């Protein structure tokens, strides 16, 4: 059962990460032409229309075991999921955080000092924060530490949604300001809103005590039959999810200022908003203190009685199910960058990004350089720092093929062939058309 859950979990995670994009687009690369709040820099000439073709960008930040640490191929080239291998790199606190956006289609229209934009895409947010003891318990079993309370508390938020956005840019002299409103239609969600899960196993006879205050909300992602039959799978109707009852609004703002002819600063704040989940929501609650030391021997020796350890364990955990609507907040991101042209063909940028989510603040910072190889082609390189990966080297580039511009960047070139094999990464790939 646990094996099945782990496979389904990874598959589910894969499902959402494969739509990929970040909590927000990075400002580090000038060669990153993914859809953003401000569009001015994307207009290369006098074109009035800018069409963002299908593209995606995403970010992943991992502390402790990387996603790929759970996987390996044996000598028969079979792909295996092995949490025990991940245990080797686990830390006291382990985090997997990722987010991204698939831009299906977006359009920007420039008229003098104003740019109007609209588009549709898919977004995902993925955050799992679990302690070493939880992973140890899962892999090594509960006969790990006796007589000591194990803190298994974990946070999780895995969700996907449709995004319909409209935006407006306005230039006033050297200053450009912009805003974007997104209507979000939730597809699926799994989120922990109360996370206390403590367990203690007594030595010798292994009585189990728990002290919980745990609330997991889900919409279309968990099929819970009993403690032995938990399936994580999408159960909704994707066709109906485009405009579902799970809806929300988010606001994003940006501003850029041309300090002089050679330099520019940009600032943005994104995803101020939330999603309300009210289409078939489910809530699983376990709270309070309880213990189970075993059944009564009287029940065992009386042949008329039936003893069920599963019932006893279910009674111990006592999961209550309700169907109350709930809301989840969007991860608020703050980004800032400074760009300066140091040569007619070369510019340098420095940028920083901060995300506050689930009470955790993550940041990253980096510098990048862009070199114009040709009128229609450029390459970029970066060096970035994040708490979970001190240094990562990035590369990128873009090329214009007539009105079409193709771009691809990654902040972690070492993970170019396995995007999730890095403690920190941001990648973006796509194309735009101007006319």
């Amino acid at each position, binding site marked *: 059962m646990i094996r099945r859950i782990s496979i389904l979990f990874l598959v589910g995670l894969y499902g959402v990460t494969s739509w990929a994009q970040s909590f927000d687009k990075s400002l580090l690369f000038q060669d990153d032409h993914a859809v953003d709040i401000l569009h001015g820099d994307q207009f290369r000439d006098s074109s009035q229309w800018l069409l963002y073709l299908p593209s995606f960008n995403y970010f992943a930040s991992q502390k402790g075991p990387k996603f790929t640490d759970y996987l390996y191929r044996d000598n028969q080239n079979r792909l295996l*999921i092995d949490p025990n291998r991940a245990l080797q790199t686990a830390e006291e606190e382990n985090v997997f955080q990722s987010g991204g956006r698939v831009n299906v289609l977006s359009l920007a229209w420039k008229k003098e000092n104003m740019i109007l934009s609209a588009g549709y895409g898919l977004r995902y947010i993925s955050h799992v924060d679990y302690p070493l003891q939880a992973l140890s318990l899962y892999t090594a079993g509960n006969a790990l530490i006796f007589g000591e309370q194990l803190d298994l508390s974990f946070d999780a938020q895995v969700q996907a949604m449709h995004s319909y956005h409209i935006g407006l840019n306005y230039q006033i002299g050297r200053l450009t300001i912009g805003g974007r409103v997104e209507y979000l239609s939730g597809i699926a969600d799994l989120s922990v809103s109360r996370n206390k899960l403590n367990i203690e196993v007594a030595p010798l006879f292994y009585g189990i005590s728990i002290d919980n205050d745990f609330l997991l909300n889900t919409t279309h992602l968990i099929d819970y039959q009993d403690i032995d039959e938990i399936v994580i799978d999408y159960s909704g109707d994707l066709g109906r999810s485009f405009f579902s009852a799970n809806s929300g609004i988010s606001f994003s703002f940006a501003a850029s200022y041309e300090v002089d002819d050679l330099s520019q600063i940009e600032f943005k704040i994104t995803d101020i908003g939330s999603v309300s989940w009210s289409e078939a929501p489910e809530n699983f609650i376990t709270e309070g203190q309880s213990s189970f030391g*075993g059944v009564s021997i009287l029940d065992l020796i009386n*042949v008329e009685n039936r003893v069920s350890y599963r019932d006893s364990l279910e009674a111990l955990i006592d999961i209550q199910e309700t169907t109350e609507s709930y809301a989840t907040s969007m991860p608020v991101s703050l980004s800032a960058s400074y760009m300066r042209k140091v040569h007619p063909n070369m510019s340098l940028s420095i940028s920083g990004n901060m995300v506050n989510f689930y009470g955790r603040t993550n940041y990253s910072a980096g510098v990048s350089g862009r070199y114009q190889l040709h009128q229609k082609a450029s390459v970029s390189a970066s060096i970035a720092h994040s708490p979970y990966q001190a240094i990562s080297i990035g590369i990128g580039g873009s090329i214009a093929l007539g009105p079409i511009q193709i771009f691809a960047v990654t902040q972690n070139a070492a993970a170019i*062939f396995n995007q999730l094999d890095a403690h920190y990464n941001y990648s973006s790939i796509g194309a735009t058309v101007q006319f």
Partner: protein
Amino acid sequence: MTKFYLLGFLVLLLTSCGDLLSIDEAESALYSSDFAIPIIDSQVTMKQILESTDDRARFSVGPDGVLSVIYDSEALSISASELLLPIPVLFDVPLLDTVNQLSFDFVQGIDVRRAIFKNNSIQFKVRVIDSDAYQIKIKIPALFKADVPFEYILEIPANSSGEEVRSSFIPLTDWELISGLSEIEVIYDARNSRDERVMIPDIRTRIDFLIFSYVEGKLSTQVFDIAPGDIPLDAFRNYISGSVDFDDPFLRLIVDNSFGVPIEPMINRLNISTNTGEVLAFDSPLFDRGVIKFDFPGFDEVGQSKRTVITLTKENSNILELIDERSESVTFDIDAIIFPQDSEVENGYIRDDGAINIITELVLPLSGIVDDYFLFDTYPIDTLELEEAEALLFNLGVSNGLPVGVNLQVDFLNEVGDVVAQLFGEPIEITAARINENGIAVKGDQEVFTSTFDRQRIDQIMDATSVKAIIGLSQAEGMDDFVSILDSYQVDIQLGLQVKVNR
């Protein structure tokens, strides 16, 4: 060049996902985990254990706190309804004169002097020989209801010559007859249309059945057969070896009697059957005729039940020689003698709801001498799903509050009852509780016993369909005197299991 770039992007895009694209084909790697599972956590008294294992017995606690096991027989009874059967009267009784003495003395063995009718009725039939009209007033002076004697008026209309005129059926329920059944006076007063008293040549009365809810009088000596009974004793059902000598067992006959007559028991048979096929007879001076008399309610206690308890103890019987670990059942055949010949009481009564109920119970106070007494019990188990288990570790903890030591082994049995494995390499010895200066057992420290199973032994127990617990009881060394099991004595049992699983 453009194609080269596009191809490069495509390759990059596909390869950058690494193993993600094939994760749905991923299998779980094999690794081992240790799971600790609490199996048993109990603090139980001997009474609770016995109640769970012996559904025939019940239990009581004596004033000294000693626990007793009680085995009851089925209740045997004689109901008054078996004695007061309806007696059919298949003919009309003619009233030959205006004053008649009728006899319905059909109730065997009872010289009735008072009776109350139940669910029956009386009818009068008249045939006249002329066309005159008549009024016939019929009285039964000894038949009362609410202190009013029975009286009935039968009208014979004119022109009834030759016809049989019948009264309706007159209910007799609750009418009380204060006389014997052999001399019931029935008087009638017949008047013609001119109010002249006349004799009716053909007047009869009819009672279909004689049924009484109460009869009173002198009963003759009668023996009522009560079905034989037995008491199966489960306490020694699964005996293996050793011995148990009880200190003070006793057999109790409890008789509840609501017949208002003297009754004596007639003990035809009272035996102990052993598991070796022997039949050992109880012997007691109480069995002599006339020694035991059942109490009965008097005339002022009609409706009440009187209890008589006869106890066969080691003082008044040979029970001590009969009850031991071989005892299998108590069998008995006891009849009731009503109005025994030397009875000092002349009259009695029986009410239709009266009964004699006899319950026999064997009481075994758990006080005695135990000498390496071994017994077993078998419990079915579900198939053990241990395919992925690599090793098992059992920790059994016991705090024994009983003044007897326990020797324990658990056998795993396959479908045909063969032992396929044992829980412990050798039977474990659980120390008896210490007896303090007041003679009370004091629970000792917890003793922990560990047993491990490797894969080979796990394979053996996976075939098990039941487990057989073999329990030996013995007194502590130097403790040769009687030991008693008090209701307050407890045994603490904890069992934990650690499973190493390959998954």
